[in-house]
């Protein structure tokens, strides 16, 4: 059988929202090189230890910027996110002096569907 991996890379620019003392982005992440990749429901490859978006708060800065659940975060403001621990990833996103984060994400939502479409 034949299949095609289709990954669209997107640039997402999130303007953090100030809530009290915090700057929030409005999403949650899972993954990391210190985590178990088999538990990641979004990855195509179950050995992928990358950082994935596991939840997006409705109406929050991330959703407004176009981030989607299941997106894999490749870079944050130029910092690599493909080989980081979970905590390192979180820290790179929540730097107190950064109001804007520019993410490079890979969106894999097309993969399975494209697979099917090429099989008929």
């Amino acid at each position, binding site marked *: 059988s034949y299949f095609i991996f289709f990954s669209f890379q997107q640039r997402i620019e999130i303007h953090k929202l100030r809530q009290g003392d915090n700057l929030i982005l409005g999403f949650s992440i899972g993954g990391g090189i210190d985590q178990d990749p088999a538990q990641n429901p979004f990855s195509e490859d179950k050995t992928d230890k990358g950082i994935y978006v596991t939840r997006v708060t409705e109406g929050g800065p991330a959703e407004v910027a176009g981030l989607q659940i299941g997106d894999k975060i490749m870079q944050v403001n130029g910092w690599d996110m493909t080989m980081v621990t979970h905590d390192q990833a979180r820290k790179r996103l929540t730097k107190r002096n950064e109001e804007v984060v520019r993410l490079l994400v890979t969106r894999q*939502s097309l993969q399975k569907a494209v697979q099917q479409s090429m099989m008929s």
Partner: protein
Amino acid sequence: MFCRNQRSRVTVARGSALEMEIRRGRCRLSLLADSPQDTEIQRKMERELRLREGACKLLAACSRREQALEAAKSLLVCNSRVLAYMAELQRRKEAQVLRRTARRPSDAGPTDERLPCRGTVCISDLRIPLMWKDTEYFRNKGELHRCAVFCLLQLGAEIHDTPMVLVDRTLTDICFESAVLFSEAGPDFELKVELYSAGLAGGSAQGSTPRKLATRLSTSLGRSSGKRVRAAMDGAPGSPPGNGGTSPLLLPAPSVPGPKFHLLAHAVLSLAEVQDGFRTHDLAIASNEESSFWLPLYGSMCCRLAAQPRCMAAPVTSGFLRLQPGAEAQSGARLYCVLRGTDLLCYHDPGEAEAGLEPALTIAVNKETRIRAAEREGRGQPHGMAVTNRYGGEEVTHTLLAESRAEAQRWMEAFWQHFYDMSQWKQCCDELMRIEVPPPRRPPAMLPRQGSLYHEMAIDPSDDIEAVTDILTQRAGGRVPGTPPWLSLFEEPPLHATPSGRATSPSPPARRPWGRPRTLSLDAKLSTLKGRGARRAAPPQHPLPHGSSSSSSGSSSPAMEHDHPGPLQSQV
């Protein structure tokens, strides 16, 4: 397998070669959706893939032939569009790469090449004649050979489909009357016309509802009955594939069931074929008499192919020019001029132009016109244009002066571009071709409705449920004595819990008169199928509480959700 520093990679294949690459094996395309146009194509592709999924589901679930044909058509259209979008993205990526690598100082030539204007191409009144002869083509005498056909029209990455037409011996021509427009064509366009056909045998071979239902039921039983039926059917022709015997058989076949469209003929039209009238073009025929989808095509196709380049359809530029007094004793009036199509229209003021009144003066601007820059007396700077036309045997020159040097340059540039466009679009610039915008076509309701798959399995009142059970009994090799033949089908509850948590159904008591063809187990099974489909469509979600309130505490510690029984997640 996304490695660090993954950049966009460009494969060498393009167009149909790309398709071959994909079909041959693993093919990885990683594309950077940087620009808004790329995002637009990506969006379109995602939409087509969603439609495709819908069409697949419908095809697998429906039993009425017209529905199946429409779904099969949608499938083919979606596939074609996805491939077209992929090829387009591929092309753009390669162009980008070429641009980056082509900056060599030794390259002579202008950095900005002049590009011809875009235009609208319209194809309409498609007619494909058929050639039915008295001699028999088809083996089944007495049975009317029928096909369902439609056309795909492709220009660039844009694909339009015509409605589907049923063709049999009583039809002399296949006609698709309505117009199809492509609005961003260049003069080098290639309009591909493809005729697709699906053979329709008589009712029996296609699969009547009882037969299809029997197949569905025999492959969707509960565990024990499934084992029993399968054991009885093993070795029989057409028995469904086994899968280890520990779980019920699911929907059969990796390939999509149902009717299939095949390419029957195609033609490629370009600028040379454009004409304000009907023309006949050759068709390349892709199959022979042996195929089920074959039709006796005459070998040609008639249509009207018109094109309206922008330079003809809309004003190119406008502004104030002063007509130099010449032989016609014009007083050097200041005129508001509009360059459009084959004329320079000169009005007294913009209001007149807007109102659509007759211009005070019309100067022809066509392939025969000569324009040269006019200089202010002796100073050597272009300040206007001399427009020379030949009327009959006479040469007439109008000298138009601009209000500034910049204006003069702007007009000259506009004229050069206009002449270039006319040289590229050729016969389309002789006269404006008429193009009618067709009324929006009502799209066929092919997206899966929110209702239950259950309703798609329509069973005609005329279809006796006994027909189903008879077929199954025959397959199983005989009737169990003393019980109604269908009883064995409904002894086991369905294995999978439905998402709505519907309770498993009790089996009907023996010998209950069969009122409705829809049984409780069938209902439950079908809703299981629907639930499975719905689950596949929705992305998996972690059942997390909404944590938007948790960050208002102002603490600097992260909101880690350790209490959730799952992988570690952090809210940012």
